[in-house]
C-alpha cells in the first residue's frame, strides 16, 4: 500500500490525468499487495471525473425521485391532485431505492471512503426510518385532533392539545405522583445499599442469598402485580391482609386510601427493583480495593467511620449510576399501576404512563395522548440531562 499511498499523495498535487496514469501503472504492475482490502478500492482522488459524475447524477436522480414520490403522495392524500397511490407503501419503496442509490453513489464518488460509508449507511437509514422519522411524526400528531372514532379523521389543531394539557388536572396529578415515585428511589437506594453490604459480608450461604435476593427482578411486573398486589395483599383473603389484621390493623385495605395506596404501589415496585440496585452496588463493593479498607482499620477507624469516610465516597460513582438508572426505570412505571389499581383510588396512584395508557388505549384519543407523551419525553430528557450533569459535579466535588 505504501506505493499506492505515496502515489496517492502525489496525485493530490498532480493533475488528474497523471494520477490516473500512475494508478493504472500501479495496478498493471500488480504491486498491490494481496492482503489489501477492499480489493478493488480506489482512493477518492483517483476516481475518474466521469465516474464521480455518474455517482452524483445517480444520487441526485434518486433524491429527486424520492422527493417527487413524497410530494405526489402528499398532494394526492390532501386531495390536491388525483394521481397517487392508495397507501404510503410506495414511499417506503422509494426510500429504500434512494438508500440503495445513495450507497452506490457513495462508492462511485468517494471510492474507498464510500465503501466504508456502506457499513454505516444501512444502520443510519434504518435509524432515520424507525426512530427519527417516527419521533418527528409523533410531534406532528401531537399537534392534531385525532380521535380514532372521529368521522373527520386527523385534523391539525396547533397547540390546542398543549393548552388542554396545561389545564388537565389528571395529568398534573400524574406528574405530581411521579415526583413522589422518583423520591422513593432514595429510600430504595438505602435499602439496596444495606442489602449489598450484607451480601458482601462474610455471611453463611452468601451465594444462596445473592440468588434469592435477585429473584424478584426476574419476575415480570405484571406477575408481581397479580401475585402480590392482587393476591397476597387482597383485602379479604390475602395473607398479607390477614397478617395485618392479626397485628391489629382493623381494616387492612392496602389500596383504598390515597396514601396507603401510593405506599403500597411504591413497595411493590421497590420489591421488584431493589435487587437491581443491590446487584450494581454489590459489584461496586466487590471491585473496591481491600487495601483502603485495611489501611482504614490500621489507622484505627471504627466501622461507622470506615463506611462514611471510605466505603461510601468510593462507592459514589456506582451509587449515582444505580440511582440514575433506577430513576429512568421509575419514570416508565405503568404496568403495576395499570394492573393493580388502574390509577385509583381517584387517581392517587396514577403515573404519567398509566394515565397516557388510558387516554390513548381506552379513549383512542391519539392526538392528545401523543401530546402528553411528547411533553413527558421532553420533561424526562431535560430532567435526566440535568440529573447527569448534577451527578457528575456532585461526584467530582465529593471526591
Amino acid at each position: 500500500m505504501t506505493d499506492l499511498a505515496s502515489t496517492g499523495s502525489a496525485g493530490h498535487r498532480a493533475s488528474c490525468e497523471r494520477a490516473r496514469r500512475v494508478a493504472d501503472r500501479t495496478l498493471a504492475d500488480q504491486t498491490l499487495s494481496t492482503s489489501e482490502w477492499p480489493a478493488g478500492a480506489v482512493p477518492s482522488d483517483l476516481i475518474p471525473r466521469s465516474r464521480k459524475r455518474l455517482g452524483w447524477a445517480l444520487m441526485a436522480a434518486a433524491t429527486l425521485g424520492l422527493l417527487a414520490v413524497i410530494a405526489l403522495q402528499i398532494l394526492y392524500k390532501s386531495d390536491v391532485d388525483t394521481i397517487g397511490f392508495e397507501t404510503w407503501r410506495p414511499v417506503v419503496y422509494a426510500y429504500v431505492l434512494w438508500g440503495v442509490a445513495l450507497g452506490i453513489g457513495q462508492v462511485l464518488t468517494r471510492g474507498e471512503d464510500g465503501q466504508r460509508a456502506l457499513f454505516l449507511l444501512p444502520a443510519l437509514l434504518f435509524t432515520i426510518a424507525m426512530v427519527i422519522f417516527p419521533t418527528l411524526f409523533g410531534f406532528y400528531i401531537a399537534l392534531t385532533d385525532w380521535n380514532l372514532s372521529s368521522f373527520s379523521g386527523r385534523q391539525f389543531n396547533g397547540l390546542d392539545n398543549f393548552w388542554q394539557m396545561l389545564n388537565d388536572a389528571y395529568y398534573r396529578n400524574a406528574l405530581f405522583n411521579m415526583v413522589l415515585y422518583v423520591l422513593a428511589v432514595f429510600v430504595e437506594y438505602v435499602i439496596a445499599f444495606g442489602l449489598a453490604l450484607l451480601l458482601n459480608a462474610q455471611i453463611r450461604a452468601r451465594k444462596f442469598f445473592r440468588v434469592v435476593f435477585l429473584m424478584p427482578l426476574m419476575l415480570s411486573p405484571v406477575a408481581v402485580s397479580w401475585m402480590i398486589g392482587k393476591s397476597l395483599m387482597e383485602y379479604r383473603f390475602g395473607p398479607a391482609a390477614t397478617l395485618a389484621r392479626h397485628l391489629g390493623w382493623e381494616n387492612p385495605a392496602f389500596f383504598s386510601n390515597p396514601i396507603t395506596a401510593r405506599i403500597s404501589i411504591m413497595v411493590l415496585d421497590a420489591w421488584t427493583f431493589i435487587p437491581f440496585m443491590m446487584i450494581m452496588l454489590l459489584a461496586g463493593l466487590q471491585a473496591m480495593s481491600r487495601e483502603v479498607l485495611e489501611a482504614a482499620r490500621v489507622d484505627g477507624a471504627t466501622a461507622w467511620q470506615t463506611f462514611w469516610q471510605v466505603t461510601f465516597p468510593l462507592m459514589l460513582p456506582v451509587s449515582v449510576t444505580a440511582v440514575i438508572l433506577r430513576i429512568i426505570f421509575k419514570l416508565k412505571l405503568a404496568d403495576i399501576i395499570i394492573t393493580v389499581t388502574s390509577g385509583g383510588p381517584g387517581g392517587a396512584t396514577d403515573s404519567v404512563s398509566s394515565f397516557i395508557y388510558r387516554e390513548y388505549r381506552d379513549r383512542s384519543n391519539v392526538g392528545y395522548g401523543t401530546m402528553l407523551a411528547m411533553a413527558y419525553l421532553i420533561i424526562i430528557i431535560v430532567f435526566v440531562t440535568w440529573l447527569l450533569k448534577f451527578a457528575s459535579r456532585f461526584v467530582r466535588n465529593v471526591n
Partner: protein
Amino acid sequence: MKVSLYNQLVRAGATRRDVLKGAASMAALAAASSAGLGALTRPAAAADDLRAQILQIPGVGKGQPTDADFQQVGELCLGATKANVKEGEFAGVELTFMGLNNQNLHNVLFRGFLKPWETYTGAKINWIDLAQADYNARLQQSIATGTVDFDIIEMGAPFEGDVCGKGLTSEMPDWVKDQIDMKDVVAYLQPPVGTWDGKQYRVTVDGDAHNFNYRTDVFADADLAKAWKDGGGEGEWGVPKTWQQVQAVTKFLKGKQVNGQDVFGYLDAPKPWGGFGFYFLGSRASAYAKHPDDKAWLFDADTMKPRVNNPAWVRAIQDVIDALPSEPADQINADPNTTAFQQFLAGTGSMVTWWGDVGSNVKTNDSSVVGDITGFSILPGSDDVYNSKTGQWDKLASGPNHAPNCAYLGWGVYVMARVDGDEKKKKAAWSAAAHLGGKDLSLWCAAYPSGFQPYRNSHFNIPEWVAAGYDEAFITSYLKSEADSYNHPNAAIEPRIPGIFQYYSAAEDILANTFAGKMKAQEGADAIAAAWEKLTDQIGRDNQIKLYKASLGM
C-alpha cells in the same frame, strides 16, 4: 354457552346417567351411537329431529366438543345453505374472516362449522384470530388507517357505530334474513340493534344483559328478618325489588352476620375497568333514568346533550356514594371482576349485578361457596322514574319502573362493504355469515361451550334442554332471568354510537374521583357531561346525533 356452565351441567348430567343407567347401559348407548344417532331420536318433525340430533353431538357428559364435532354440527346444519346456494357455486372465491380466539372458542368453532360449508360451496376462508385485548385496537386501527383487510368480522354491537356508522359494512340481503329466521331473535336484539338507518347489517350470534344475582339464604334468614322488623325496616324482609330497597338493605346489613360470617349488601364496582365499569353505574341508573315513554336515557336524542348529570343519574351516583361505607372496607378498589368473582362467589355481599356469568359460575367455579344459595332476577326497579321531558319524577300507575340494562348486546357476524363490488363474493360472504347465525346451529352454540349465550326465543324451550340431558331446575331459573331481561318492554338499550367506550372510559375516571370523595355527585356528573360534550364535538356532533337516533330506532 359459557364453558363453566356447560361443565356444571355436564357434571349434573353425568351423575344422573351413572346412577340411572350404570355401566351396561353406557355400553349400549355407545353401541347405539356408533350405529347412528338417528336410532336415538324420537319420530317427530324433521327440524326437531335435527335439533335433537345435533344436541347429541358430542352428547352431554362426553367431554368438551372437538373440531370433529364442530364439523359434524356444521355439516348437519347445512340444509339452509343448500337451499340458497348451488354446490360449488363459490368455487374460486377467497374470503378473510376476522374474529376472536378467546378460551379457544369463537373463531375456533367457526372454523369447524364453516369447513363443510367450504367443501360444499367451493369457497375458501382465511382466518385472522385475535385475542380480546388486541381486538379493539386492531379494529380501530383498521378503520382509522383505511386498511380493512377482512371480508367478514365477528364484532360486538357497541362497535356498530364505529363500523356500520362509517359505511364499512355490507347491507344484509333479504334471502339472508329469511335463512336465519330473524323473527326468532329475542325482542331486544331485534332492530334497531344490528341496523343503521333502517338497513340490517348484523347476523346475531350472541346475547348479553345485566341481571340481578342475590343470596337466597340471606333474604330467608329468620334472625335478619327479626332484626329488620325490630329496626323499623319497611315491609317484609325479602329480596329487594327496587333500588330504594337495595339501598336500605345494604345499610341495614352492615355489621350483620349470617352463620357467623359477615354479610354485606349490594356490591358496587367503583374501580375503572377499561370502560366496562360504567355499565354497572348504568345498571343502577337505568330504573331511574329510562322512562317507558322515552327511548333515550344517556343523551338527549336531538342534541346529544348528556343526561348523565340529570337528577336520575346523579341519584344513582349518590346511591353508590351512600352505599360504599356499608360495603366491604376496600370496596373503592373493586372492579366488576372483583365484585363478581372474588366477592360474591366467595360469599361476601348478598347482591350483585352482572352479565350471565355469575349464574354460570356459582356452581362451577372452584372458589364459589354460593352454588345452592343464589337466586336470579331482572334488575331491581325504582318507585319513581325521572322524566327528562318534564323534569319531574313520575310514579307509574303500573308500579315500580323496571329497565333491564341490556349492556353490550352480544356478538354478531358482519360482512364488510368491500365485497359489495363482486356479486359472487358478496353472496359467498353472506352465505357464510348466515350459516354461522343459523337457527339450529345457534341452539348448539347456546347449549355447548362456544362463548355465546342464548339469544333466540327458540333457545328458551326448556324441554329441549332437558331432553338433551340438562338439569331442569337450574336451567329454568337461570334462563328465566336472562329471557325476562331480553324481552322487557322498557329495556335500556346500549347506545351504539362511535367511540361509546371512550365515553364510558372518560366517565369511569371521573367517577373514580367522585367515589373517592374528591367531588360531590353533582360535580362529578357535571364533569362527565362536560367531558362527553367535548368528545361529541371531537367525534362530530351532527353525525353522533344521527347515529344515536338510528341506534335507538328513532
